[in-house]
């Protein structure tokens, strides 16, 4: 069957995005990741693998972290989505962002938004996780640059300060 025979209409999506009511049109086969970056214009969420392995595309969906490459945009109608763009307060940085800078927990930075969104979800649930717990929680986030130690230290340091 060709594309002409099966016209696929765009679907309206209304969600709460970083606390704000947002509406956009997405193709029904479009991932949330692609819609965020290419329709809404929020490019902070990164694409690494596009198949659920790297976590660069991590966002929070109704309070749970998910890989946005494995979510359809159409699914988030009526739901709440939080991305890296909503993390920092209006002035300054989130304690985790500050800690990543201070501990030099990034090099190229493509994995960083995903790590930050994932780490925030951990600290919101468990304010003082031990190193093992941090490593396990972040196992779905890959980094090719840092070797992870500095990322783990940054999360510990942010946890210590809150």
């Amino acid at each position, binding site marked *: *069957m060709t*594309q002409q025979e*099966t016209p*696929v*209409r765009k*679907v309206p999506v209304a969600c709460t995005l970083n606390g704000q009511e947002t509406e956009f049109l997405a*193709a*029904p*086969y479009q*991932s949330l990741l692609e819609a965020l970056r290419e329709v809404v214009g929020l490019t902070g969420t990164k694409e690494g693998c*596009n*198949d*659920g*392995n790297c*976590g660069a595309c*991590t966002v929070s*969906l109704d309070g*749970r*972290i*998910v*890989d946005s*490459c*494995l*979510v*359809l945009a*159409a*699914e988030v109608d009526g739901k709440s989505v939080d991305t890296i763009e909503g993390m920092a307060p209006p002035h300054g940085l989130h304690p985790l962002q500050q800690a990543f800078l201070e501990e030099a927990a990034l090099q190229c930075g493509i994995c960083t938004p995903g790590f930050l969104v*994932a780490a925030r*979800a951990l600290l919101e649930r468990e304010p003082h996780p031990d190193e093992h717990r941090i490593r*396990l*929680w*972040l*196992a*779905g*986030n890959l980094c090719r640059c840092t070797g992870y130690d500095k990322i783990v230290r940054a999360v510990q340091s942010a946890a210590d300060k809150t």
Partner: protein
Amino acid sequence: MHPFTYVAPRTLDEAVAVLEQHGERARPFAGGTDVLVQLRGGRFDLDAIVDLKGVPEATTLDLNGSLRIGAAVPCYRIYEDSAVAAAFPGLIDAASLIGGIQIQSRASLGGNLCNASPSADGICPLIVHSTVAVVQGPQGERRVPVEEFCTAPGANVLGRGELLVALEVPAPDKGFGAAYQRFIPRNEMDIAVAGVASALTLGEDGATIASGRIALAAVGPTPLFAAKASAFLAGKPATPETFAEAGEIASTEATPIGDMRGTAEHRIELVKVLTRRTLAIALGRAQSNR
């Protein structure tokens, strides 16, 4: 990727109707952690994806002695439910190791079963719990034991218009314990080289095995119920010697291939080791459940 429409039915009947209408050109969609990856990889094309997360029967988790797991219930809901976790630690072993946290927010045991991968981590624990798959289709409901559900790599018993509604796990008997372990070269986020689920029920004396069940992952075309090793356990003392012998028998029921993850010989050895270990864990759990 061939463009597909997104359908979000609110009832089981609606879901069945859409699936029946499209036949092979539509598939159910739970967490999407297999189906979206396969679609992007060009494994197949679809005209419609049928999201089951709005269908009440597929999204409820109901513990009432027995446990009913809606087919689209994500893993985290299973392991974060403290009553379910306390009653079914052998299922939690699997639900808490599928993918990482992001995957567990979405991936369902129903999707794990329907995807029918030989290396699926969720299927063997369901088998040793004697779980029944509740299927709904154009002809109504039918019930299939989980060990008969997968027919070949990536294939299952579902016909046109049929979908998995829920998994029914019987209430564990007194003295029942179960466990699942897999071997992977990393600590997490990898596909099993081999996996074993074991369950046993202790007799009145607390020392003899009344009955047992063993199932094997990634050592055959589908997850396998090890019938001989399971039958062997009945009436035997719950000792390391018995567990080792069950492992030897289970390894004769495995039909592994060698691939980039491991050789066939390695997998056979893993079946022996993992059978011993999971039976020992199952015993501990059985003893605390008397």
